[in-house]
């Protein structure tokens, strides 16, 4: 299976090189492979790429970490609330339909070019998305587990933290993998719109300079980073939350 995938990737790269290096070296579709290779080296100095990369990845992974830790400790209360006041939390779902893009614009409007505001934005978005997932997953909690735990003497918040939350924890972490990709996109839009230091800001300047090759170089590096992040999250999910 992996061999087949690698073979397919190798074929696509070969076709890309032949087509855009030799047959169509000047075009508006894809950059010439040799120029792309050059650009991957140049962007680090031309666009201060390392600092931008460090800034964006810090925002994304710090937001994910803080939101997950917050949800880890607050979920039992959320689950309890959902069990006891289902209508109240259900009505909060209306916020799911608000475009996250709107919140990004408002944050930029309120706080301007602020790194802290960007992190706060990332934390709020990922915490809200994880909270919605917790609320959504409450209906999946196995009632047999709750009955058994109550029968064995567990009640109150311990019942929700030791049983209900543990039951849905793999799904919550799985959702984190989705949020990971979503946050990458959203934070880059945030930086792009606000022209803030970060990968989104770098994209803004590359587009302004009409640097066609750089746009592809950024995408290539970012996709590798997202892929790596995804692999790490998947590994953690399989190793730690194996009971899914």
């Amino acid at each position, binding site marked *: 299976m992996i061999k087949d995938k690698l073979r397919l990737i190798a074929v696509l790269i070969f076709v890309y090189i032949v087509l855009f290096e030799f047959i169509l070296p000047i075009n508006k579709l894809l950059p010439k492979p040799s120029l792309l290779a050059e650009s991957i080296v140049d962007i680090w100095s031309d666009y201060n790429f390392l600092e931008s990369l460090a800034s964006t990845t810090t925002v994304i992974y710090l937001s994910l970490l803080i939101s997950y830790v917050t949800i880890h400790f607050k979920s039992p209360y959320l689950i309890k609330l959902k069990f006891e006041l289902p209508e109240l939390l259900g009505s909060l779902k209306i916020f799911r339909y608000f475009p996250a893009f709107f919140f990004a614009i408002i944050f930029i409007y309120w706080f301007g070019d602020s790194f802290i505001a960007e992190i706060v934005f990332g934390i709020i978005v990922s915490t809200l998305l994880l909270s919605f997932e917790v609320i959504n997953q409450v209906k999946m909690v196995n009632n*047999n*587990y709750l*009955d*058994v735990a109550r029968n*064995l003497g567990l009640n109150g918040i311990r019942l929700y933290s030791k049983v209900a939350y*543990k039951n849905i924890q793999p799904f919550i972490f799985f959702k984190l993998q989705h949020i990971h990709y979503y946050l990458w996109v959203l934070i880059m839009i945030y930086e792009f719109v606000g022209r803030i230091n970060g990968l989104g800001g770098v994209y803004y300047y590359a587009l302004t300079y009409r640097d066609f090759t750089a746009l592809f170089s950024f995408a290539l590096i970012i996709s590798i980073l997202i892929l790596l992040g995804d692999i790490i999250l998947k590994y953690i999910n399989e190793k730690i939350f*194996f009971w899914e």
Partner: protein
Amino acid sequence: MIEIKNIKKVLTRTSSINTILLDDLNFQITENLITGIIAPQGSGKTTLLKIISGLEDPTSGEINNSENIIFIPGEPSSFPWLNVKENILFGLDNNVAESEFHDVVKLLGLEGYENHFPNNKSTGFRFRISLARSIIRTPKLICLDEPFDKLDQLTKYEIYNLILKVNHIRRITFLLATTNITEALYLSKKIYLMKKDPGKIIGSFDINFTKERNIEIIDEAEFISMRTKIENTIKENPSYSMINFSI
């Protein structure tokens, strides 16, 4: 002896129509014995066991001597995120002597599996964990809610014999709710028949076989005769159509 007195359970649907699930249920559970309740599906067996274990309140009626009653549901209920040892000691805050833990683990055939996780394990294995978790608490009664439905034939008999062994060695009282006559006969010393719409006890049988209870007993005349007797009582009541007459 645990006495179930005049238990009534009325369910209120969203349309405000009340349904009487259990009506005036009266029976006794003798200590140290296995008591069986044979009832059709949808008769309120699970609700009854939950009421007896204190997980649900009856609309009226009472259960005397009702502390420390353990409920084992039909579906696997060992927590998949805890290993066997953590499952067995769940909620006990390590207030159990190591020797007692080892005795229970050995009795249930879980020796060597203490660090294994029940996730992806067989239903029989998960039932053993649930049983170990129950008996380590030295309960007054263990309520079994059709726990053998998903087991294959061989595992079923292994688990039946395990329950008989636990009952014999630990003198633990069991209440088994089932739709399966053979299963109830194989395990119980006393069987109650319960009808549905509403759930009510309509008969009882004392089961005293002269021979030891093992897989051969189901072909013995006394077993077949008792089974026929129960089946005939059942056939007189149309609400028993859901009972499984075979093993």
